[in-house]
Structure formats: C-alpha cells, structure tokens
C-alpha cells in the first residue's frame, strides 16, 4: 500500500500527490509534510547518509504501523540522501484517507517515527570548511513517545 523511496534526486510533491489520488473518489483529504534543509548557524550544506536495505525495511515498517493505527487509503514516504543545500527539500511524507484527522495524524506520526526509527544520519558542512555530525535531539524522542 505504501510507496517508499530513498533517492538522491529531488521529489515532485504535486506528482506524488496526484499519484496517490489518481482514479479515486473515496478520499476526503491528503496531508503532506516536506522537511527542508535549514541554514542554521552558518551551515553551507547537509550530507545525508543511510543504511541501504535497512532504511527501506524501516520505512516500510513505519508505514505499516501507521496503516494499522489509521484508516489510510495510501501513503508515500520519500527520503533523499547525499548533499543538500539550505532550502532543499529532504523528506516527503504524504497520507491519504477518507477522513482528515486520520490523514493529518498519520502524517505527523510518520514524521515522528521516521526521525527516530529510520537509519539516516546528517553531517553538516559549515561555511568555514569544518564539518560536524548532527546530534539526535531529545525532543524527537519525546515526539516519538507520544504515539
């Protein structure tokens, strides 16, 4: 039911959204979240690394968990890897359901779980040429725990 992709290329929000609803008249709403590379503290670029194989399994597992909890008609998770500049989109989550609350809640759930349960790691390249690994945030653990 879920479309899962891990890719270097940008994604197309409109095309992904259209694919999710194509030919259906039983949907009440489509929720989406696009995570964007933010230019914190002189960050020049972000490099996303992942664990090929496990990533896709983990994302599919998270999507299956969302489908168990909410009546979803469809769901799409696309996560980019590689080098990204500030302003670049990094991750897309789309959920479709007959009911808006299901779509919106599942979208928030997928982002929270993805943040703490999918094997991606971010390295920041700074304007001065140095680099640093992004540290996991306690807020993300708390956000995962609320579901």
């Amino acid at each position, binding site marked *: 039911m879920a479309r899962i992709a891990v890719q270097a290329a940008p994604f197309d929000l409109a095309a992904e959204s259209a694919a999710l609803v194509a030919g259906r008249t039983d949907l009440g709403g489509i929720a989406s979240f696009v995570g964007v590379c933010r230019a914190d503290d002189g960050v020049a670029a972000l490099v996303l690394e992942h664990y090929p194989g496990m990533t896709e399994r983990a994302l599919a597992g998270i999507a299956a968990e969302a489908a168990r909890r909410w009546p979803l008609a469809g769901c799409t998770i696309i996560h980019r890897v590689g080098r990204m500049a500030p302003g670049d989109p990094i991750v897309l989550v789309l959920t479709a359901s007959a009911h808006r609350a299901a779509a919106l809640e599942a979208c928030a759930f997928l982002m929270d779980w993805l*943040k703490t349960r999918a094997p991606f790691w971010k390295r920041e390249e700074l304007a001065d040429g140095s680099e640093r690994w*992004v540290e996991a945030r306690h807020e993300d653990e708390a956000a995962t725990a609320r579901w």
Partner: protein
Amino acid sequence: MKVLYFAWVRQKVGLAEEVVQPPAEVRDVAGLVAWLSARSPGHAAAFAHPGQVRAAVNQEFAGADAAVAGQDEVAFFPPVTGG
C-alpha cells in the same frame, strides 16, 4: 559475520564494513563490541562510549543483549538523525 559502520562510527573505525569471525564466546552485541574494540585503536575509539553507539542485527534495531552469530549482518552507528 558481516559488520557495518555508519556516520562517525564509520569514520572512527576507518572502515564502512568488514567480515569478521569472532570466537564462539562472542554471543551478543555487547560481546561483539568488546571483541571489536580490541581490533584497532580506531575500533577502540568508536566504541569508547558504548552509550553513544546503537546497533542493528540483520537490519533490525537491537540492544546490547541481542544475540549475534554466524552469518548475521551487524551494524553500528550513532542515534539516527534523519527527517
């Protein structure tokens, strides 16, 4: 046994992956960490603070007491930071 390293764990170990044959007494993730730590100063540095390193066995997150054996794929990495 195939062992994979990611992010700064990979950088400290100096390898993205290696195939190892730990002795029979290495039965779980904690035992494997102790055994790997003795392989090189890089390994020792990567595992110097075990609380900062997470593990997966056969592509599922696993705790320190998770069993490892034979043909398992075991990965070590920092807490994840995607999204």
